[in-house]
């Protein structure tokens, strides 16, 4: 899917963007003639570049609308996205040429900076759209998140049953490991996939970190040699296997949450900044002409 996003219709929009970029550079270079007005947005070439840039910004923003119009026949979403990527990239050039790299503490540079942030966040989005689906597929090994959660639930229920036959100390510890498992959480926790799971150790009132189920797995493995009865050792072995599996699934789920988060998180930058850009762009145009 990802290659076809860029290569859609034999790089049609890549070629368009290239052409637009070349025309833009030509226009910019043709500004040398008027010495009263060094290259910037105020020459006629600057006005043309600015108008093209503004129209591109508005059109690129419409992708968000088109994506939600499932019944729309105005091109495929894939085509729109391909154009969005290429024309968005060339907008960086068009906008820079329009500004002639002149910056200051003003609304014009605000619009430019917002545009750059939107585009760079878009580049990040493109990067994750291209790379993360593969990672996600490898991570999830052919099953979706719900299937893994179900397996985890089964596993936990199994552990709860199995641990019934153990001593109260181990039972409490194992159950606390289950109850204090952390999956997901805040945006930061989701994106870092940091394991905040905890466990209450025997004789202690405060929970300690049980990242990657390490404490409970260690505790179980240490108890196996001390088992007095064959049946007890079997139970411990079974618990160890169950927690081992649990560790694998939890890790996998955390990666799943992280990858899906990364696929999504840039949009929380990309979209609000786009809206801010549209506002700043309008003010930019307005302010240029109110103080012509």
């Amino acid at each position, binding site marked *: 899917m990802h290659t076809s996003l860029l290569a859609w219709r034999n790089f049609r929009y890549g070629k368009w963007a290239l052409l637009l970029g070349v025309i833009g550079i030509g226009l910019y270079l043709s500004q040398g003639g008027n010495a009263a007005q060094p290259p910037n947005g*105020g020459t006629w070439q600057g006005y043309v570049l600015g108008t093209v840039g503004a129209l591109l910004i508005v059109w690129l923003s419409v992708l968000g609308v088109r994506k939600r119009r499932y019944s729309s026949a105005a091109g495929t979403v894939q085509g729109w996205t391909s154009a969005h990527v290429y024309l968005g990239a060339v907008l960086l050039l068009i906008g820079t040429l329009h500004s002639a790299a002149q910056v*200051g503490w003003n609304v014009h540079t*605000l619009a430019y900076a917002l545009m750059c942030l939107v585009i760079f966040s878009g580049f990040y989005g493109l990067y994750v759209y291209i790379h993360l689906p593969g990672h996600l597929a490898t991570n999830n090994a052919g099953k979706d998140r719900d299937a893994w959660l179900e397996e985890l*639930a089964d596993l936990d229920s199994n552990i709860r049953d199995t641990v*019934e036959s153990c001593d109260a100390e181990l039972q409490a510890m194992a159950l606390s490991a289950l109850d204090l498992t952390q999956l997901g959480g805040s*945006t930061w926790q989701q994106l870092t996939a940091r394991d905040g799971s905890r466990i209450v150790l025997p004789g202690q009132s405060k929970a300690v970190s049980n990242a990657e189920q390490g404490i409970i797995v260690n505790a179980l493995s240490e108890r196996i040699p001390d088992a007095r009865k064959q049946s007890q050792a079997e139970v411990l072995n079974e618990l160890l296997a169950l927690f081992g599996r649990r560790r694998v699934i939890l890790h996998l789920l955390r990666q799943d949450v992280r990858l899906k988060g990364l696929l999504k998180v840039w949009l929380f930058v990309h979209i609000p900044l*786009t809206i801010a850009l549209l506002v700043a762009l309008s003010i930019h145009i307005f302010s240029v002409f109110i103080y012509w």
Partner: protein
Amino acid sequence: MYFLVRRQTGRGSGEALENEYQGNELTLGSSDAMVLLPGLAGSLQLKPSKGGVQVVAKGMEFQLGDKTQRKGTLPPGETLSVGGYELSLFEAPSGFELGLLVRRTGPVKASFGGAMELAFSSRRLSWALALVVLAIFLILPLAGVFQPDVAQALRSSPLPDDGLWSSGPLVAAHDTSGVSEDCQACHTTPFVMVEDAACLECHRGMTEHVDIALHPAEAFAGERCATCHREHNEPEQLVRLDNGLCVDCHATPADWPGAEGMEAVSAFTTAAHPEFRLGLLTPQGPGGAHGWKLERVRADQPDLQERSNLKFTHAVHLDVEKVQDEASGEALVCASCHVPKDDGEHFEEISMDAHCRSCHGLSFDVFDPELELPHGDLRAAITAMEAHFIREFTDPDLRAERAGQKPRRVPGKRYAAASCEGTGLDCGRAEALKEAEYQFEQTGCITCHEVMDTGAADIFDRWYVQPIRITADWYPKGVFDHTSHLSLAWDETTEVCEACHAASASDDARDILIPGEDNCLSCHAEDKGLTAVGCVGCHAFHQRDGSLSLQARSSPHAKLEQQGE
């Protein structure tokens, strides 16, 4: 109260686990509950009531009978379904208020309470950002546009003002109080390009390129000050220095049929620039009696002469054998007489008193060599002579003293009569006439001046001394910096001057010692890769003799032409 919860385990069919709980109510949920049911989206609160148990769900709904609900009563014998579990009541053993059977019916999803999806609202952040940008960059500055008081308040506070709309820096001259912070100083009317009136409000002495009374000015109609002078550029630049400023029009004189005498200029090279035009002062009337007229003639025309009426030779004055500096005894140098003005281009006026008199004194009586004639006023000079001699011959003491004196003979001075027979008045007048004849006709005034003998009987009308007018500005349409050229590496400043002005060889005051185009081109030709200078190196757009912009741009003439555009 005590609750007994029986749960069917995953292994085996009949096996069940029982747990006891104590409290006012029994809670079920995926976390933070008495009975943990993994995968449950919300929580349930159970309280024994009449006819079963009252169930309240939070964050989810449950199925009881045929109805989906959040609150209801589960009677014995019926089953409540929620999130993959079935709850039913069984008869509780004694000591227990409630017996609850929990069965898992389907696959459960594990849940640990933490969100697994990013739950950010793009919409809220978008609104917030949009409103912040709108408030800071539009609403506040715009308030100032309509309310000058608000603008004033905003600009004197750290709050955002319309300075945020500035598209670039101002030139240093405009980056000053009263202009830089007040956008409306120039942008007087919203959505209207900066008008000339805003510029001329301060720049009242600004002149146009031409005198619109003499030249067709339609080429400039419709152009604004800001056509050439653009602010807010980077780098700051307000004054055009490119050749295009001039040659866009001057390269094609044919396009300007009304511009008399305009010659094609496209660069400063021999081929592309015409010979300079000297500003030659031509006397009007005999001896410039009616003043001088400035005529501009090409410097390469043969036999051009300056007609200042001055008798003078540079050759003699620069010859140490003939003229020496009074104080040092050395030869005179150019700077002995020619002192640059502060503009570095022009020189202080040459005057009799400042430059000539120390050698060329106007003493007229050898018996009284300290006494000098007044200069520059013929009538005053004759009156002074008459008064002096009449006094000498009228006062008996002076007359006797003069008769007894034998003054030393001074070369170039008339040996005045020591004694005279007759009345003091007659003798004085006669002596004055003789001295005047000598001064005006032999040596004295006539040394430097052209003097005409009118033949009139009246001594006051007998001579006419032609006025002197030395050219002060040879190239009125060009500028030249003598100061920078004086830094050339010669030992003597005179040599520097003589590199361009061949003064030592000039034995006639009518020689024009001003170099022409070739002299400048030898160093500054644009096509030789030398020290090239563009048009504005020597010429300015705003001409000293152009019309005042304040008048030209608001004149009915200019307005009519603009309307005609």
